[in-house]
């Protein structure tokens, strides 16, 4: 799967869990998702579930490093490294 396709899937998913009053376009790929107010810290759980189901990433052995999920850029990097 190409990075562009991954990005589209991720953006589509984030749009379903983000704060309704903030448009996706308001944040750059490198902006912190929680820091920018786009999502709250609980939404992190849903991002993990999304990455497990869509990209088959298994966090059970490695654990979660919240830094890896802090921005769109970092999540895409994680998908590139870890998706099966």
């Amino acid at each position, binding site marked *: 799967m190409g990075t562009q396709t991954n990005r589209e899937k991720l953006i589509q998913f984030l749009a*379903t*869990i*983000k704060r*309704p009053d903030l448009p996706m376009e308001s944040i750059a790929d490198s902006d912190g998702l929680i820091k920018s107010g786009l999502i*709250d*810290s*609980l*939404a992190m*759980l*849903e991002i*993990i*579930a999304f990455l*497990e189901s869509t990209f088959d990433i298994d*966090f*059970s*052995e*490695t*654990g*979660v*490093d919240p*830094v890896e999920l802090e921005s769109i850029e970092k999540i895409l990097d994680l998908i590139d490294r870890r998706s099966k």
Partner: protein
Amino acid sequence: MIFSNLYQQITQFHENERLHEWSVVPLGNTLLWVLVLFLLQDTEFLFLLPVMFLTQQFPERRAWIMTLGAGGLFFFKKLHQLNVDDSLWFLIDTALIVSILYVFFKISKSFSILPRIIRNNPQIFLHLILWFFILITLLLPENYRDDPAWPVASNLTVCLVFFAFLIWRIGFMLYSGKRGSLKQTGFVDHLIYCLPYLGASQVPYGKGLDYLYPKRANGRLELAKIQLAGLKLLALASVWDLVLTVLDWAFFDAEAGRQPLFQLYHLQELIELSTTQMPAMTTLWISLIVDMVYETTQLAISGHLIIGCLRLFGFNLFRNTYKPLLAKTLIDFWNRYYYYFKELLVDFFFFPVYLSFFRNHPKWRIFAATMASAFLGNFYYHLLQHFDTLLISGEMPSFTRFGSYLFYCFVLGIAIFISILREQNQRGKHAAPCSTLVTIRKIAGVWLFFSILRIWDRTDSAFMADTSFFFAIFGIHF
């Protein structure tokens, strides 16, 4: 509008770029440290001031300065608390504790070659080691800590108390090893969080190095900005301290010849009162609420001082307490009230369970993870914390002492689970903006819940006494 802008400028002074530049020049920098001196003068953190100043002057030596200066002060204070006054034992104990940390640093650094069972369960391995040594202390004769014939056993127990105190920090070190992020770091880098500075508790403020290092200042201007943010927290701590003084004057302090404006009681005092001494129902309920606000303010003060100092050391960290009394949901309150404790529970209990069980059952998954953290993890943390105190006082931990706290953690776990589900249901939906009245109702609900739940939030009380007090606040006495 003018006032709003002015308020914004004053409260957000640390974001002012001109101020960053000014605090770098000698005059501005001197003023910064004079203000820090003024704000820290009556606190135990005052001794850290020269160490903070040195890290500003030699940022490339930050880890060494913090370890030798602040770490040294930590040992001095903690060993003194544990009555280690003999200088030879002081040195031996310090060397042993640093050796324990070094052994775990080496283990973490060699994480990839550890046996698979340890690699898969590093935290369980760590805690099993601790409990193995705790069980060994049970074999020692009673009162051995005060017996001069047992100095070796007594000092080894001191090291064990330190090990228990530092265990969550060592846990973060193992996590770094698991993530492979230890390769670029030296042992001294890890001592900056493994040796918590004056006043810190078992909770690692600033977590581990993986969290701390990306947040350190790069460059003089960035340091100035972070230092000003630290100064702001110290100032806030002073303001809240003043608020406590006013609350004491108005409600709690009954000095000779003067009654408070309106007599209220702290929770501990209320629970100790007999049925006949109980104040009127209105006073009882107002006391419960005001005491919750009082305790939250106390926590904010201690957290602001610790994080303020860490910011002055050059680490741009989140506050420990961030406006919890404005939270509109239970989970939000929990997130804002004691951030680094919540993070500890999330890192060591929530995520491990969330990632390992019920992957195909979202609600069960969240339930298991929430109960593992807010209920079991929370209880286990306090059990370990009080093992420390009990061992110092020469007693053995008694599980019956924790009945009330066990109940507290259970109710908290269930409440947070329900709150998470409600939040998830709301996520992504366009909610109508809340009216002021609805917002106040939500905030009041959170205050009420935590004011009542706090009745059991104590690790030194009897479950029956606390429960009977709970009924007493509804006028039911037995």
